[in-house]
């Protein structure tokens, strides 16, 4: 196990190194010139050249990347071109909002997905099952920006139950978390359904029923803990989907997290911020996958990590 963990951590570090290289390279070859953005339209060629030198952008690619990388291993992610603040500081100040949204969204998708999956499994083949499975298809087919606008229109504009956007109170959190959770709930409900159907067929469930235990007790205490495990393992893999979703959802709801930060930075070609957010997201994805793999043997002891 320690050997496995060590190897996976080294692999993860290599993957992150690769991500940093590719992102840096892509941003380097892009036709947009960050110096023009900083200098403004009226800047003289001399000013533009000075800024370019100050930022080290006149150096060859390898030098630039090496500088970035050696800063990175010391925890220095560079400075934002336009805001002049440390990128690490900017991200650190925005990360709590994103993490809060993430936890709330995972809670939503588990609650919705698991409930839908259990009900569908118990009513297998009947109307409720079919309706729920159509619902799960709708959930995975709905574009997140449309869902966010729809929720805003119904619950904020028309009913006035929640604020239109912003950050601070529990009411601000509900709609963005629901938007992000809905997509996952579609996948989870389908997974939960098939896992539940498998578990309900198991001998120990029949034994529990034969002992005279009530149906709800058998489902909730005996079947659920086993059936839910594959769904839990999926959460780790889902982080990637989540990291994509936050860019849109945070922008629509004005949620001050790293998704919004990334979107603003992309519009202004603020390369250090784009690099930083990409790396933080990649870290989260790699970590999520690692956790999912570490959980697997707990779910199925026949699987050994090697």
């Amino acid at each position: 196990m320690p050997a496995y963990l060590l190897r996976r951590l080294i692999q993860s570090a290599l993957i992150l190194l690769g991500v940093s290289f590719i992102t840096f390279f892509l941003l380097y070859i892009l036709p947009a010139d960050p110096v023009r953005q900083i200098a403004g339209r009226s800047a003289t060629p001399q000013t533009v050249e000075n800024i370019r030198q100050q930022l080290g952008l006149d150096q060859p690619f390898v030098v630039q990347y090496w500088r970035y990388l050696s800063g990175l291993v010391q925890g220095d992610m560079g400075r934002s071109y336009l805001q002049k603040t440390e990128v690490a500081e900017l991200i650190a100040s925005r990360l709590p909002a994103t993490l809060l949204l993430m936890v709330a969204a995972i809670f939503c998708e588990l609650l919705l997905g698991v409930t839908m999956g259990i009900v569908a499994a118990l009513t297998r083949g009947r109307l409720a099952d079919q309706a729920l499975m159509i619902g799960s298809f709708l959930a995975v087919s709905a574009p997140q920006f449309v869902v966010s606008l729809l929720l805003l229109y119904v619950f904020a504009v028309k009913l006035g139950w929640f604020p239109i956007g912003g950050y601070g109170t529990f009411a601000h959190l509900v709609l963005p978390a629901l938007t992000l959770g809905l997509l996952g709930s579609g996948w989870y409900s389908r997974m939960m359904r098939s896992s539940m159907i498998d578990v309900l067929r198991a001998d120990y469930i029949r034994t529990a029923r034969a002992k005279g235990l009530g149906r709800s007790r058998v489902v909730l205490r005996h079947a659920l803990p086993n059936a839910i495990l594959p769904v839990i393992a999926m959460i780790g893999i889902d982080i990637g989907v989540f990291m994509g979703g936050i860019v849109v959802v945070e922008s629509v709801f004005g949620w001050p997290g790293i998704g919004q930060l990334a979107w603003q930075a992309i519009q202004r070609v603020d390369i250090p911020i784009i690099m930083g957010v990409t790396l933080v997201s990649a870290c989260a994805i790699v970590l999520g996958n690692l956790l999912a793999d570490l959980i697997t043997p707990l779910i199925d002891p026949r699987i050994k990590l090697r």
Partner: protein
Amino acid sequence: MTDASAADTRPKGALARLLQRKLALFGLVLIAAITGSALLAPWIAPFAPEAQMFDGLTIEGAPLPPGGAYLWGTDLLGRDLFSRMLYGARTSLIIGVVANGLALLIGTLVGLTAGYFQGWIGSVLMRFTDLMMAFPALLLAICLAAIFQPSLWIVALVIALVNWVQTARVIYTETTALSQREFIAAERTLGAGTGRILFRHILPHLLPTIIVWGTLGISTTVLLEATLSFLGVGVQPPTPSWGNIIFENQTYFQSAPWLVFIPGAAILLLALAFNLVGDALRDVLDPMQRGRV
């Protein structure tokens, strides 16, 4: 969903089995309807999609609601929404087919090569695939699309570049398993060349997987294009796309919600249709996966 013909054991073609499923049929009808209206757009559309109508706005300059002279109302520039939606369907479908086809091609080639040759080629390709898996795909796509002045083809290319990874992994796993089967060893003993083994013997076995992933992938692609266009970094106005119709009109969404929700519903239905058909295809073509997620 449930297989109505469980008792019917006569062997049937995949198409016949597909058509027996109500949801798949619904999906196919939707796809046919949307494709039909996209192809026939020049003849069905009552107005030119870019034409700003003289009477297309109220006196206060607000868009007209659905009903009346303009079936689905007009947008913020007084253009007929129905006509723009018809032409927008072309954008969605072109990107859906082109970007997804390209992603499928890259994914299949990478998976096939890595799975058959293994060794260092396989390692390099699959490590690269792992690396791509760690990329926040949407962030990458937005970044690329934002900085390359996006056109229809650039958007398709960007989507293909971030979307081939899943296919590559699935094809890799299947090719690895197939390459160890006896009939492939037999072909090799008979002196068949690598190209022949790959394309005549392994590829046909992968077709069901490719078809299933190809169909499900169109749904992902359509959603991705809509998202990019919604953020304003996808297909650029005045070329209509369902995503950029929402992008252009979202400031009006409180007073003119139809401008957001009609295109929104269209994107949802198109993605739904391909998901329904893809899911049914998986059940029909791949009995091992039946009943799984």
